[in-house]
């Protein structure tokens, strides 16, 4: 198989991991919205932690993307 083709296929398979990240981020924000709906006064506190959780989950997405880029370009 051509090296370029193998690289493309590898990069494509590597980003399947983003499926889990999508579920995770959706989970975080759905709980965030539900908790603000239950108790609107908690918005300030909960929002900071929610954004922190989002950034940490996004990091996992970027680990997967990093592997894809490494396969594709290096």
């Amino acid at each position: 198989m051509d090296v370029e083709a193998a690289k493309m296929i590898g990069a494509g398979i590597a980003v399947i991991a983003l499926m889990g990240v999508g579920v995770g981020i959706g989970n975080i924000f759905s709980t965030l919205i539900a908790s603000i709906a239950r108790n609107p006064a908690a918005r300030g506190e909960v929002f900071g932690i929610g954004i922190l959780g989002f950034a940490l989950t996004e990091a996992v997405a970027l680990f997967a993307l990093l592997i894809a880029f490494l396969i594709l370009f290096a």
Partner: protein
Amino acid sequence: MAGSSAPTEGGFPSPVEQFHLLEMINIDVAGLNLSFTTSAFYMMATAVLVGVFLVQSMKGRHLVPTRLQSMAELSYEFVAGMVRENVGSEGRPYFPFIFSLFMFILVGNLFGMLPFGHYTYTFTSQIIVTFAMAMAVFIGVTVIALMKHGLHFFSFFFPSGAPVYMAPLLIPIEILSYLSRPVSLSVRLFANMMAGHTMMKVFGTFVVLLGAFGVAPMVVLVALTGFEILVAVLQAYVFTILTCIYLNDALHLH
């Protein structure tokens, strides 16, 4: 990142070409290439900008702050609040370090959003830079913990309240997750910056390739640039708050 210069479709260079460094002043010390690159230039520019901003804005020391002074006070209060909440009053001696870390990463990330490809550079998109910062935090926090708690520090790896027979399973896992902290801290920042800029480059290529229909990728590119600015600020915040959390772990074992 050894990105090849091989042209991709349409004769464009590879999207990782933007991470190649331009040597501004060539310094060669006994075979080691210690040139002053764009990365070093932007690190200096960040330090100078933050320093000048803070000194100049606080020059008047008005009781009712002017606009510039208000900006400096806001950033101070933001980081001070972060340290106070996450570390407590014992974290105050470490506040200058955490503030410098936050401002350095924030301004460094934002400098990367400037255009003029070859002459601007995001120094946080280099793994060695983020790794150095993460290692500084990790080693600093471990040394602080060892100095404060001595050998009792190793009880950190065995959470109290867990049954003793779980120890052989729990302790290696805890140690491994502790050792992976600098890795995750550095790769998070590095991957966010590198992936973001690479995506912007790829969409930019689409805009040119599609010609007249390039309006569609252009709209996405505008949204992506806005998102990248958000990510720049967010990643600085996340790096700093994780540093505060690790410091809290060191100062108060659990």
